[in-house]
């Protein structure tokens, strides 16, 4: 096993051979090999952003439906909760007859995992809107739709974006398993040299970095769209 690894590594790398042979953390090797991570990194971005985007669209729609018909909250939470508990390997396997191997399978599964979190947070956000603001809105003659878009949703934004952040971070992690469905991403790169420390550190580190960047981006958006929260604090 170790022999295999070194043979593989040495094919592409000569400079830090000593370090590589000892399976240490090798900056030289990383400097020489960073290019191999570029494509997987962007694949990983895709495997995160696309499922979160689609998941948001679905969960948001479901939440708006359930907001008007509260009895739907239970069933929807049940179904999305069940989806959330399916182990990803099993999920990929179950999807294979339908979507084959590749990105589609991974994206479908990852999308399903985001639904519960986003749905629940949108519902919580809508429920947290102060009753007095809603009463005043109705009393001033806002229709149900105007109330939803002008009062309830804006006030649900912090909770909604908090859900999006959790969903995004979770998806970055889960996307590392997408290679099992035949998709790329940093997980596939990790899997190519799973016991070579430098590779694990770089592939893993990039995934953490990606999660942090996306999280920061959503946080920035939240700050921009909720100026009242800072003003009142």
């Amino acid at each position: 096993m170790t022999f295999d690894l070194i043979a593989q590594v040495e094919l592409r790398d000569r400079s830090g051979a000593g370090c590589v042979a000892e399976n240490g953390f090798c900056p030289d090797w990383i400097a020489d090999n960073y290019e191999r991570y570029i494509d997987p990194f962007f694949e990983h971005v895709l495997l995160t952003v696309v499922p979160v985007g689609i998941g948001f669209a679905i969960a948001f729609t479901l939440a708006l439906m359930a907001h008007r018909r509260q009895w739907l909250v239970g069933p929807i939470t049940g179904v999305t909760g069940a989806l959330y508990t399916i182990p990803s390997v099993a999920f990929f396997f179950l999807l294979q007859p339908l979507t084959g191997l590749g990105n589609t399978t991974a994206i479908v599964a990852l999308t399903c995992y985001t639904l519960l979190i986003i749905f629940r947070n949108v519902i919580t956000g809508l429920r947290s809107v102060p009753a007095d603001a809603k009463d005043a809105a109705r009393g001033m003659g806002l229709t149900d739709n105007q109330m939803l878009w002008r009062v309830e949703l804006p006030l649900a934004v912090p909770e909604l974006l908090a859900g999006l952040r959790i969903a995004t971070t979770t998806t970055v992690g889960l996307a590392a398993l997408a290679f099992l469905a035949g998709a790329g991403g940093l997980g596939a790169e990790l899997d190519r040299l799973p016991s070579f420390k430098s590779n694990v550190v770089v592939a893993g580190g990039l995934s953490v970095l990606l999660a942090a960047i996306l999280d920061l981006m959503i946080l920035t958006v939240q700050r921009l769209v909720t100026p009242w929260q800072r003003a009142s604090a």
Partner: protein
Amino acid sequence: MTENSSAAPTDGKGDRQAATLEFREATKRYDGQSEPAVDELSLEVPAGEICVLVGPSGCGKTTAMRLVNRMIDLTSGDILLDGRSVTERKPAELRREIGYAIQQIGLFPHLTIADNIATVPRLLGWDKQRISVRIDELLELVSLEPSETRDRYPGQLSGGQRQRVGVARALAVDPPLMLMDEPFGAIDPINRERLQNEFLRLQHDIRKTIVFVTHDIDEAIKMGDRIAILQKGGKLAQFATPAELLMYPNSKFVEDFVGADRALKRLALQRVRDIDLWKAATVRVGEPAAEARAKIADSDLPMALLVDDGGRPLGWLSDRALGGERVERQIRSPAEPAVELDDILRDALADLLTSETRYGPVVDGRGRVAGVLSLEVIGGFLHEAPVEARSGVELVEES
């Protein structure tokens, strides 16, 4: 949030007419409750008047008020706004014509004060310029500095300031009717009193028809042109002007509700000019003493008030001042307290009591003596009513 509708607002630029409001056997029974929350309520509110709904907690005041703008739908009976049944109207449209202010205020925390106030004008499609002008106008109306307040968020204002914004927002499109549910309920007594006074001054100018809900009888007496006292089960116990209510409570319930000090409360409703004052003998220095004595004999007091050339009181004349041929400048005691015709009777009584005197000169707007107010005069006023308080504190039991 911004709508650029070109539709001309239906209401004119000038002041809108206040609406008349009529409850006709309005009844509300909530689902699953045997007793109605509002029971065959009938009353008429003339245009431009404040009608206060008052009563103990749970008596149906809020329910009755919310029937008007259809936040709650009638079980039976009807409510007419300017002669037209509210049940014929689309709720959202109806509500845009009716100002709505509640105790919890319900400002939108995510919108600036300006945007909060602009809510209904935008729903009605006013243009930006008109909305902007109106916001400043309203903020000034409720004593807030527009430039400081416009762009702040509700979370950055004090409770009293928020309450003012709530009133401004309710007034935004100059609605012919306002519904106010304990609008000053959540504010400390000092600020509440200020807001009440400000609001009465405001109402003096805008002359809206207002339904004002409170559980505080003192607030009701102060704010109301008419008061509807409700009792448990949403039954109207009495509908009358504050003075009538205090003079002629029609039941033990109303009597108890207005309180044992209702005689004193009546004093708060009257001004000094409203009652018959004692006639004062006013004399000037240098006047023939005989003439002065004749004036005293003709007055309600055994002494004269020395006045200057403008008729302004200088002090009570000493007996020795009449000893000679002409009135001399000899003062026995100062002309205090100075009561004005426009003073509230209760305040005037308080002035007399603080000055430890039984009477004091009353002056008109220009400072000229108009008469004398005495404890006896006030006592007489309190005794005019058939059911009366001897001391102004103890109630004489009815029959």
